[in-house]
Structure formats: structure tokens, C-alpha cells
């Protein structure tokens, strides 16, 4: 995770019996970035961009990428509790901005409902977690590893730049392992929690909802529902981006986040 001259420090942090892989870099306001269900790419352009002006904490979800798999884990709320544990142990929650990308956005929203005043700012980007009323959240169980990830890009050239036009078998195996972990904790209902919309009303943390105009994985209406459910939220739509806004327009997203963090 360093091509842009950012020096990333990585460590394995024991939490709830999990060897949690955590990368960190940069100085400035504290930002926790929770990645997508496909895991974090080796070159994570948003995290690199944020680390230029922020102190970025970038964990891999339990059972994803380089974090060990907790066989006992059964729900996205379990993941949220693990992150609260991590933050609590290091006293990092105060003045923290939590940025959740897609599936990570769902985890971030669950974390916020558990501690409605704990964070400084909440940023949800194309977040899963809420059931759409009209459309559907794309079911990765019916799509090949490559087709699913490509579906999240409005501009396929961005996919090619990050993963290569034909991703290596080792990348496919990592996507398969991550997908298996997603199934273990989010199989049914798939990619949403029916109780979440009812619990978001207590979250007083200012929230920025960001959605790619062409998100073909989580419909834009879910962004609108998040905006309605969260008392202090505004919705920002990114033109020309799909689900993976962070990989398609990392600098634009980083500047949205840093400006939001700097707001009084």
C-alpha cells in the first residue's frame, strides 16, 4: 500500500482473539477507513491521498485480506464491536472521523448506532446496510469475482489500472476468501440489517453521505434513506463514479472528506 511515497506502518493487533491487520500513516486529524467487502487493494488510492493531510488508520476486516478469520463471527455488528474494542484500547475514538466504504460503510453505521456521540464525523460512501425500497443490492453470489468488481466501476479503465485487465489468480483467490467471509457474516438478509434504519435516529454525529451517480451495486436510493434516517446528514453525489468512488475518484473523495473534517 505505498506507491505515492506514503510510508505505511503495519502491525497485527490482537482483538477478540483475532490477529487484526492494521496499517497506519500520516499526521493530522484522525481518520479510520473501513474497506469494501472485496478487501483493500495493494495500492489503496484513497488511503494514500488521505494520509497526506490526516493520520489514517486502515484495518483489514476480521477474516479479510491479512486479518485472521474468527470462526465464531456471525454478523456485521460483531465486526462493529471489534472495531470499537480496537479504538477503545488505544483511546482513539475521540475526535475521530470514521470513513466507511461500501460494506465498510455498513460497519461504520452500525458502530455509530452503538455509540451515537463517540465520533467527530461519519462518512458513508455507497454504504450497504439499508434495504432499498425499489431496487436491489447486487448479489455477488451470482457474479464472478471479476464481474462483481467490474460492476462497481463506472469507468472500466480505473479497474484495469488497479487490478490489471486480467487480474492474477492470487487476486481471485483473495477475492474468494473475502467473499466467503462476507457470506459468513452477511448472507441473510443479504447486505442489510432491517433494524438499522430504526436505530440511526439517535446518531448525532454529523454525517456526510457520498454516492457515485452510477453505483450499480448499492442503489442511490439507499443513500437517500441514510440521509433521511441520520439527523445531521447531507448527501453528496459524485458524477461519473460507480460504487468504488474511492478507487475511481480518490482525490475528489479525499478532498470531500478533509473539507468535511475541517468544518466547524
Amino acid at each position: 500500500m505505498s506507491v505515492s511515497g506514503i510510508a505505511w506502518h503495519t502491525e497485527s493487533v490482537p482483538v477478540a482473539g483475532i490477529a487484526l491487520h492494521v496499517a497506519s500513516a500520516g499526521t493530522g486529524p484522525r481518520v479510520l477507513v473501513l474497506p469494501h467487502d472485496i478487501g483493500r487493494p495493494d495500492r489503496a488510492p484513497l488511503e494514500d491521498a488521505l494520509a497526506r493531510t490526516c493520520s489514517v488508520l486502515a484495518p483489514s476486516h476480521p477474516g479479510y485480506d491479512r486479518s485472521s478469520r474468527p470462526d465464531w463471527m456471525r454478523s456485521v455488528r460483531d465486526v462493529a464491536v471489534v472495531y470499537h474494542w480496537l479504538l477503545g484500547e488505544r483511546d482513539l475514538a475521540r475526535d475521530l472521523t470514521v470513513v466507511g466504504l461500501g460494506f465498510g460503510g455498513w460497519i461504520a453505521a452500525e458502530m455509530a448506532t452503538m455509540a451515537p456521540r463517540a465520533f467527530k464525523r461519519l462518512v458513508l460512501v455507497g454504504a450497504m446496510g439499508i434495504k432499498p425500497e425499489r431496487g436491489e443490492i447486487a448479489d455477488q453470489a451470482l457474479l464472478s469475482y471479476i464481474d462483481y468488481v467490474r460492476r462497481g466501476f463506472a469507468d472500466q479503465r480505473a479497474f484495469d489500472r488497479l487490478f490489471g485487465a486480467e487480474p492474477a489468480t492470487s487476486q481471485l483467490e483473495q477475492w474468494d476468501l473475502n467473499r466467503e467471509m462476507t457470506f459468513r457474516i452477511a448472507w441473510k438478509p443479504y447486505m442489510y440489517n432491517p433494524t438499522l434504519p430504526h436505530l440511526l435516529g439517535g446518531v448525532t454525529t454529523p454525517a456526510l453521505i457520498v454516492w457515485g451517480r452510477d453505483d450499480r451495486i448499492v442503489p442511490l436510493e439507499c443513500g437517500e434513506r441514510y440521509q433521511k434516517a441520520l439527523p445531521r446528514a447531507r448527501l453528496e453525489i459524485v458524477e461519473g463514479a460507480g460504487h468504488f468512488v474511492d478507487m475511481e475518484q480518490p482525490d475528489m473523495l479525499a478532498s470531500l472528506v478533509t473539507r468535511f473534517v475541517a468544518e466547524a
Partner: protein
Amino acid sequence: MHLMYFTEQPMSAYPEQEGRDFGATALMFSNRHFDPVAGSRLYNEYLEHYRLAEEVGFDGIMLNEHHNAPFCMQAKCNVFASILAATTRRVKLVLLGNPLPLADNPVRLAEELAMIDMVSRGRLVSGFVRGGGQEQLATGVNPAYNRERFEEAHALIVKAWTQPGPFRWEGTHYQHRVVNPWAVPLQTPHPRVWIPGVLSKETIIWAAKQRYPYIALSTEIEATKKIWELYDQVAKETGYAGGPEYRGYLQRCHVAETEEKALANARQFMWMQGEFTGLAHPVWSSPSGYFSPSYRTAFVEYAVGRRSNPRGAAFEDQIQNQQIVAGTPKTVIPKLRRLLEETRPSIVGFWAADGFVSSADTKTCIRLLGQEVLPALRDIGKELGLWSPFEANAPTSIQFAEPARPKETGR
């Protein structure tokens, strides 16, 4: 020997071009192509074939189930087993089997199977399977816990069959306040359990540890030998000797009056294997978490089209290696002798026809098998000492040393 009749119950009466155009005939291939008029005719033909199989001398009828696919229109093997329990008199009803992980209530399965055992007067052999990959999706069951659910449901069913209720079950995947089914099997200690499989080493090892016969599904002879090497090794470590009574094999075998006709009909075995319509969708057939981790590389490459189906092979190759046997009784008997000599199974299922083979040709095949092939195989079985679990009085399982018997005759 225990010789069984089997059909996948193909639902071939749909517009083939639609399947070709869609590119897969499983899971998402629309059931608007399912014609219930043809379905009604076919179900009744299949019932007629089963009864004929009993009449001509088969020892057992093997049943299975699949979901959302024309290659098998039997969506619940317990339904056909129930019908056959009442309409046959002698044959064993061999279910290979109920897909345990698909069940959200294994106690209900235990009840249904107990009912079938009682109605059939103790003729049930209750095999269990994991279910195919796409069936996890068809039933909404989490593929990542497939094997855990299989093992836990099995333990719960055996307990429900063998220990008086009520008891409480607090498992990882199943929780039941009260287990007390008011239906228990006629056979004690419980109906025999056989485990079919084709690819996963984990299943072979599990079956051998339970001391359950393993039924190899149409594998080639060399691969079958490797299965028995592994099974026997685990049996030895578990404290018993493997052998014919633990070995079963499902043989695709079409017999007709002439070689030409037999070969032409045997080509229909490829109907299911995707030669015509592409049965398996590479993604849906292998959901993440379902397959053995040792095959991860093969399956992720298959899923994106970088390698061919690890399960598939061409018709000519399958004739050559005897995964498919076709001919007149006279020409198939020596081939089947080779199978028996080289792999020494005592349980053999005959998958007699598939695809578009007519009901008349299927019945001819069943008659020729019963009248000419089965008697020859019984002689070969005696000569080679291939005693079935029933003939050998083999233990029901590692847990229960006594052979399964209906209560009225066994005690």
C-alpha cells in the same frame, strides 16, 4: 452384492434452444420452460420404471434430489420414497440422499425418514449429501457453513432416531427446544446410512470415520481406486478394516438389443454433463465457502473461464475409461466384471438412461439388466467375495456395532 436401479429423473421436455441461448441450465434458467403436462407424464413414467425394476430383480431403488435444474426433476427424494414405500414390496429404498445442510429443521427430516421406514416395513437406507453448490443458492442456505451444517444435522438426526425424547438441542447451527418426534424408525439401531460423493476428500474421510459405506458417483476406475485407498487408510486408523461392504459405485450403464442403439442412447448421458446446453454455471455451481479449500485455485480459475470444469470429460473418453458403459448384455458384462475386479464394490447402482431416451427404451434396458446382467454380476460377486452390508451383517456405524434390522424380525 446389492444392485440398484437409478435415474436422475431428467426433465428433457423443454425447448433446447432456450437452454443453449441462456448458456446454463441450472439455478437461473427460467422455470417458465417447465411444462407441467410433460412433468406429469414423466413423473408417472419414472414410477412405472421403478416398479419394473423391482419386478425384474433389482435389490434397491436409488433416489436423489436436485433443485432448479432440468437435469433432475425430483425436488424431494422423500416424496418418491414415500410413494415407493407403499407401492413396492421388496426393494430397499436407498436415498442418496437428503441434502442435510439445506434443512432448517433436521428433526422434521428425522420424522419423514422414520415414517418412510415404517411404511416400507424397514426397507429404508438413508443416505445424506451436502447438496450441490447451486442448491445452496436455490434454497438460500449459507454455503460457507455447508459442511458444519451437514455434520450437525447428521448428529441431531441420529440422536432423534436412537435416543428417547424429549431432549433439547443447543447446537451451533440448530437449536431445538424440544426434540421428541412421535415417529421413530422401524429399523434398529437406525436405518443404514450411505454417503455418496465424487470430489471432496473431506466427505470420504468423514464417511470412513463414521464407518458408513461410501458410494462413488461415476468416477473413473483409477480415481475410484484412490478413493478406496483413502477410505481404507482412514478405516484402519479408526480401528476397522475397509472392504467391499463399505464400497459402492454408481455406474452409468445403458443396455439395448444392439450395440448401435445402446451407444446412441448412451450419448444422452452427456445431456446432463452440459454437452448440449451447458449444465453448470461456473459461478453458481461453486459459491465461495462451499468447495474444499484444497480446490480453491481450480475453482476460482473455473469461475472466470480460465480452466474447464474440473468435473467434466468427453463422451468418448468416458466410454473408454468405463465411466459410461453401453452395449448388449453380452458386451457390458465383461466391462462390469473389470469394474468389480479392479475396485471391488459390493453396492452397484445402475444409472440406466438419461436425457431424451424414450420410456420404451428405458424399460427394455431395465428388463435386459434384470434378466441377463444382474444374474451374471451376482455370480461374479460371489466369485470375488463382494458381500453387501446386508449379506456381511456389517455394523450400522462406528457408534452402533449391530447391523440395522426391522424391529419385528431383528429382536
